[in-house]
Every structure is written in structure tokens, then in C-alpha cells.
């Protein structure tokens, strides 16, 4: 049976269309979810896409965190539902306390928009099992508030538990310890600042490396169902 992967649209989401397309290209059925609808409609995994939910008012992701759908997603994520937060989705996951730390204004204050090399540090998550540890991938980054910060104890814990999922090779925003992506302790929730959904087709992306994040989730679903 084809896996069903939900893609949430918040007011101000931009990349929900691309995320749904990436899900389809990876071989799953994208299911569009709406922020004000608490139902997950039986999806097997969820993507929180990039964009500027609620205009980034107050703090990025601070208001989206209280969306009706997020209450359901937080509970489901704690029960093991694979959740990928991309860019604004990563910010929402931090605001919802599913992931530690916070994403702050880029240190140089400039919006950064470029193709970015990442090094996959952990292939043990639901969203990165298609990669090898140490593998370098090329994926677009585009953010103004992508600087990952956490206190030293949290950073040390993330490193010790292998929860740094990807690092920048050439830090675009000042993120502490070059962190581009992290995961929760169970490995089912991943937040990533760059945009794998923009690297799934030769016509529009710099590589096809982004597909691996989505095929990883499908592989994870098959393995956990078996």
C-alpha cells in the first residue's frame, strides 16, 4: 500500500506545494493538511513545510505552534509518527518543544539563498536512513532566521546522543557548531533548515539529493510496519 504523507499548510506557508511534490516523486501519496483542522486523516508521516507562517509575527513559528493541527501532531510525534520540519517547519518544531534550541536571526543579518553542501552526521533517523554517515549532499538553503542556538549543555547532549543530523559545510548563518538539522531522542522527528524538497528534480534543483529524506521516511515506515 502506498504510504500517505501529510503536508500541513499554515497561513503563510510557501513550500507546501513543493513538499507535496517531493512526497509524490519519492513514491508516496501526499495528503494536504490544514492548520485549523485537528485531523491527520490517517497519514503515516507529516511534513511541516517552509514559509512564513502567520507572517513570522512575534517569532518564527511561535503562533503556528498553537494551530489546531499542531496539538494533534505533537501527540502523534511523541507516539512515534515521523515528522519532518523544513525551515519554518523546523522553527515550529522548536517552538512546540518537540526539538530543543531555537532558530534566531542570521548572525550577519542577511537573508541567505544559495545551494548548500551539508554533511549527513546521523543516518539513524526516520528521515535520513537512505544516506551514509559522512555523506555530503547539495541542497538549497534560503532563510533569514536560520541561526541555530542552544545552551552548551543541550549542544553537548545533542552531539553525545548522535542527534546532530546534518552540518553545514561552510556555515551560511552562524548556526552553533554548524548545525543544519537535528532530531529528537527517538529519531522520528527531524528539523532541517535547508530545503530537501527543492532538490528532487534536475529541472528545478541543484541535485536530486533531497529525495533521500523522503524515501528514508518510506523505508522507515516499511521497516517499522514489518
Amino acid at each position, binding site marked *: 500500500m502506498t504510504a500517505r504523507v501529510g503536508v500541513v499548510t499554515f497561513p503563510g506557508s510557501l513550500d507546501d506545494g513543493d513538499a507535496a511534490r517531493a512526497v509524490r516523486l519519492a513514491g508516496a501519496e501526499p495528503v494536504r493538511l490544514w492548520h485549523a483542522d485537528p485531523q491527520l486523516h490517517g497519514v503515516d508521516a507529516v511534513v511541516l513545510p517552509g514559509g512564513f507562517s502567520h507572517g513570522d509575527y*512575534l*517569532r518564527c513559528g*511561535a*503562533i503556528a505552534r*498553537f494551530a489546531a493541527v499542531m496539538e494533534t501532531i505533537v501527540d502523534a510525534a511523541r507516539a512515534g509518527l515521523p515528522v519532518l520540519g523544513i525551515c519554518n517547519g523546523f522553527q515550529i518544531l*522548536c*517552538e512546540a518543544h518537540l526539538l*530543543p*534550541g*531555537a532558530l*534566531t*536571526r*542570521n*548572525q*550577519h*543579518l542577511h537573508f541567505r539563498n544559495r545551494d548548500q553542501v551539508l554533511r549527513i552526521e546521523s543516518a539513524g533517523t526516520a528521515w535520513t536512513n537512505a544516506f551514509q554517515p559522512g555523506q555530503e549532499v547539495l541542497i538549497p538553503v534560503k532563510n533569514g532566521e536560520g541561526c541555530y*542556538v*542552544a*545552551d552548551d549543555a543541550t549542544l553537548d547532549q545533542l552531539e553525545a546522543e548522535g542527534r546532530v543530523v546534518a552540518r553545514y559545510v561552510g556555515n551560511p548563518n*552562524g548556526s552553533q557548531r554548524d548545525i543544519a538539522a537535528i532530531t529528537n531522542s527517538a529519531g522520528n522527528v527531524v528539523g532541517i533548515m535547508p530545503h530537501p524538497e527543492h532538490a528532487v528534480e534536475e529541472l528545478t534543483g541543484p541535485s536530486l539529493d533531497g529525495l533521500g529524506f523522503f524515501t528514508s521516511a518510506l523505508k522507515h515506515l516499511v521497516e517499522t510496519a514489518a
Partner: protein
Amino acid sequence: MPRVVVDVMLKPEILDPQGQAVANALPRLGVTDVASVRIGRRIEIEFAGEPDLNQTREIADKLLANPVIEDFTIRLAEDGETVDAQP
């Protein structure tokens, strides 16, 4: 009705690039004796009834500030301190 004022500031250990950018612009105004600038956010809350500081604390902790990176203080506005927005 008096308002409650919430001030949200980045924690001291969190880098404030906005504040740094402002500090770096000051010499162009001829100001050279400023050691540092930090930028925060001030929120004024008007309750329908009596101001509720406990509820304000909850609002600030859950929504207005991100405790990972920010601290907040709350207080009642003093007489004449706040001005109603123009309709």
C-alpha cells in the same frame, strides 16, 4: 484601564546581531561612547477588566517570549505611560 507592560529581551548569552548592527551604525552619527546596544520587544496588554498579572505571566511564558533564548519582565504601566492607538 491600566495596561500590563511586558518587556522581552534576548538572554545575555545570546548574540544580538540587530543590536550589534545598530551599535556599529552609531559612529556614523558621531556617537563613539556607546559600549553595546541590545534590542528587545515591548508588549502592552489591556484586559477587559482588572489587569491580571498572573495571566500575563502565563501569556508571556507560553507565547510572547521563547524561554530558550529570551527573558521577560512584567509590570503595570504607570499613569500616562501608555497611549491609546488612534482608531
